[in-house]
C-alpha cells in the first residue's frame, strides 16, 4: 500500500501506481515549467544590455584637475589594493578575494582594450559603480563593493573614470573565479541586488551638518568602510541593523566602529585623523593588516576628506556611555605605571602576582619578558617603538585573532619606507606557547574576560599563509604628544 502524505492520513490508494506515476510526472513537468517561466521572467527583467565599446580617450584629452580628483577618490576607495596583485602591475587585477562562497579574482581595470576596461564608456563605468553591472551587461559580484560605490556622485564617478582611463594599459588576464553553481551564473546577482542593493547616489541627511554629510558620503560610499567593519548575513550582505558592529577582512578582525569599539583608550576625531593619515595614533598603535594599506593610501587623499571621514567615524563610535572617561583614565594610569624599562625578575614576580588568569602562567610571563618587553616596555615612542600593550585593541578586543596575527607575522620591513618593523614569531613559538602568551597578555594588560577562542585563532592564523602588508609610515618627525603623555605627567604628579 502507498502512503499518501498529502493529507497525513494513511488510506488505501484508490488510483493505482501507474496513474500515480503519470500524475507525478505531469506535476513535475508543470512545476518545472512554472519555475522556468519565473526564471525566464526574472532573467528578462534582470537582463542588462551591453553598452557599446568605445576607443579609449587619447592621452592629454582629459582635464588634469579631474584626474587629480579621481586620484584622491581612488586613494579613499583603495582601488589599487584589490586591483593590484603583489607582484603584478598596478590595477591589472588578479587578486584572489576569499569569500565564504569561493574565491573571486579582481579584474584588470587598466585602460587596456582587450583585457582591461579600455573600451568602457563613462556611462558603462558609472553603471558598474552605481548598479554593479559590467559593460557587456554581466553582473559583477559584490566582492567589488558596488553596494557602497553606488552612493558615489555623478561628478565623482566622472573623476574616477578620468583617473582610471589615464593609467598605464596593461595586458593581463586574471584567473577565473572559483565559485560553485549556481553562483557562477552571474545573473543570480540580480536577485541579490534586489534584496541588498539600494542604488545611490548619496542623499544628504538634513539632520546633520555639511561636514558630517561629507564624512558620511565618503565613508558609506567610496570609502566602503562597512564592507569590512559591518557583519554580514549568510548571503554575504552587510547586516543593515548592525552597521559598524565589527566584521573581518582577510583573516583580520575589523573592529567595531560603533559604541562597542573595544579600544582601551577612546577614539576621537583627532586620533582617527592622525591614524588614518599617518598610520598611527599615540593611544592606539600603528595601522596593520588591511588597515596598513588603507592608511597608506589615505596619505595621498585630500586631508580635508580624511578629517571628514574621521569625524563621521568618531560620531558613529560616539561617547560610549558616561563611564567611558573613567575607564579611559584607569587605562592611562595603568599604562603609565607599566612603562618602566627595567624588566628585572622582581618586576616579573610582581606582574605574575597580578594576573587574573587562574591558570598561573609563569611561562607566558617569561615569554613576554624575553620576546616582547624589550621593545614594548621601552622608552621609544610610536610609531617606531612597540606600543604600550595596555593600549592595544588587539589585546583588549573581542577575539585573539589580531594579536595572534601580529605575533606570528610581525610587521615586515617595507622597501625604502620609513615604517615600524616588528619581527614575527611564527617559527619561534609553537601553538601552546602562543596560547600561553596570549592568555598572559590578556590577563595582564586588560580587565576583560579571558578569550575563549584562542586555540581556534591560532590554528586558523597559522594555516592561512597570511601575507602581511608592509605599512607605510609617517615622516620621521616625532609625533605630537597624545593623551598618553598628559596622563603620564599627571600620574607622576599624583
Amino acid at each position, binding site marked *: 500500500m502507498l502512503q499518501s502524505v498529502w493529507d497525513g492520513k494513511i488510506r488505501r490508494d484508490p488510483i493505482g501506481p501507474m496513474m500515480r506515476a503519470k500524475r507525478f510526472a505531469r506535476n513535475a513537468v508543470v512545476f518545472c515549467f512554472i519555475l522556468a517561466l519565473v526564471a525566464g521572467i526574472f532573467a528578462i527583467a534582470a537582463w542588462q544590455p551591453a553598452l557599446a565599446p568605445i576607443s579609449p580617450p587619447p592621452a592629454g584629452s582629459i582635464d588634469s584637475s579631474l584626474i587629480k580628483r579621481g586620484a584622491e577618490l581612488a586613494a579613499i576607495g583603495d582601488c589599487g589594493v584589490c586591483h593590484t596583485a603583489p*607582484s603584478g602591475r598596478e590595477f591589472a587585477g588578479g587578486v584572489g578575494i576569499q569569500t565564504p562562497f569561493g574565491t573571486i579574482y579582481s579584474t584588470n581595470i587598466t585602460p587596456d582594450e582587450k583585457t582591461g576596461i579600455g573600451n568602457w564608456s563613462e556611462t558603462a563605468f558609472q553603471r558598474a559603480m552605481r548598479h554593479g553591472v559590467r559593460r557587456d551587461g554581466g553582473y559583477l559580484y559584490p566582492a567589488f563593493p558596488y553596494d557602497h560605490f553606488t552612493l558615489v556622485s555623478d561628478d565623482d564617478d566622472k573623476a574616477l573614470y578620468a583617473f582610471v582611463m589615464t593609467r598605464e594599459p596593461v595586458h593581463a588576464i586574471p584567473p577565473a573565479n572559483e565559485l560553485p553553481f549556481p553562483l557562477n551564473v552571474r545573473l543570480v546577482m540580480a536577485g541579490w541586488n534586489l534584496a541588498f542593493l539600494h542604488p545611490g547616489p548619496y542623499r544628504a541627511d538634513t539632520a546633520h551638518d555639511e561636514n558630517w554629510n561629507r564624512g558620511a558620503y565618503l565613508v558609506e560610499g567610496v570609502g566602503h568602510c562597512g564592507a569590512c567593519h559591518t557583519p554580514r548575513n549568510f548571503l554575504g550582505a552587510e547586516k543593515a541593523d548592525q552597521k559598524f558592529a565589527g566584521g573581518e577582512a582577510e583573516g583580520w578582525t575589523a573592529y567595531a566602529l560603533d559604541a562597542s569599539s573595544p579600544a582601551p583608550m577612546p577614539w576621537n576625531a583627532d586620533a582617527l585623523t592622525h591614524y588614518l593619515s599617518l598610520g598611527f595614533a599615540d593611544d592606539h598603535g600603528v595601522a596593520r593588516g588591511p588597515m596598513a594599506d588603507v592608511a597608506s593610501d589615505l596619505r595621498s587623499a585630500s586631508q580635508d576628506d580624511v578629517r571628514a571621514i574621521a569625524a563621521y567615524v568618531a560620531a558613529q563610535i560616539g561617547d560610549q556611555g558616561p563611564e567611558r572617561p573613567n575607564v579611559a583614565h584607569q587605562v592611562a594610569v595603568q599604562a603609565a605605571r607599566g612603562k618602566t624599562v627595567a*624588566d628585572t*625578575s622582581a618586576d616579573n614576580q610582581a606582574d605574575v602576582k597580578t594576573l587574573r588568569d587562574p591558570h598561573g602562567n609563569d*611561562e607566558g610571563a*617569561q*615569554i613576554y*619578558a*624575553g*620576546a616582547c618587553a*624589550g*621593545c614594548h616596555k621601552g622608552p621609544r615612542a610610536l610609531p617606531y617603538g612597540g606600543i604600550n600593550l595596555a593600549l592595544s585593541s588587539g589585546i583588549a578586543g573581542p577575539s585573539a585573532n589580531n594579536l595572534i596575527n601580529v605575533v606570528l607575522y*610581525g610587521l*615586515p*620591513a617595507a622597501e625604502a619606507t620609513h615604517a615600524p*618593523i*616588528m*619581527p614575527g*614569531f*611564527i*617559527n*619561534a*613559538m*609553537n601553538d601552546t*606557547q602562543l596560547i600561553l602568551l596570549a592568555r598572559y597578555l590578556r590577563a595582564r594588560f586588560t580587565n576583560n574576560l579571558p578569550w575563549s577562542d584562542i586555540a581556534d585563532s591560532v590554528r586558523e592564523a597559522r594555516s592561512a599563509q597570511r601575507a602581511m602588508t608592509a605599512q607605510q609610515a609617517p615622516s620621521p618627525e616625532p609625533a605630537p604628544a597624545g593623551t598618553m603623555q598628559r596622563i603620564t605627567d599627571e600620574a607622576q604628579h599624583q
Partner: protein
Amino acid sequence: MKLNINNSEHDVDMDPRTPLLYVLRDDLKLNAAKFGCGLGQCGACTVLVDGEPIFSCVTPIALLADKQITTLEGLGTSEQPAPIQRAFIEAQAAQCGYCIPGMMMRAQALLQKNPHASDAEIRAWLEPNLCRCGTHMRILRAIHRAQAMMTTAQEGSQG
C-alpha cells in the same frame, strides 16, 4: 634548562628570558650567528628552529626547550663543508662577511623545504636579511649554486 643545538644536548644555566643569540655566542662560543641590531630588523642573528628561520636576538630560550636548533656550525665544517658553505666559498660571496651566516641559514631553510625555489622566490625569501656591503648579487649566485649542488645530490641519491 636543556637546549638541543646542532643535534647535541646542552645544559644551559641562564635566565630563561635570555635571547638565544647570547647563549650561542657567549656560553657555547659559537661564532656564526651575529649581533646586528637586537631588534629583529636585519637577520644577522638568523638560526633555524625545527628547520625554520628565527631571529635569535629576540627569541628567549624559554621558547626553545624540546626544539631542534641549528646554527651554521651545525651544517658543516671547514673540513667538511655543507653544500651551502661550499657554494658561498666557491662564489666568493662575501665582502666583510658579517651578514653572511644569517643569509646562509635563511637560504638553507628555504632550500630544505623548497629545493626548486625560483630566483624570484629566493629574492622574496631573503627580504628580512640586510647586507650593507652590497654583496647581494653574489649571495644570490651562491644560493643558486647551493641549490644546484643539493638537487644534484638528491637526484644522485635517488638514482
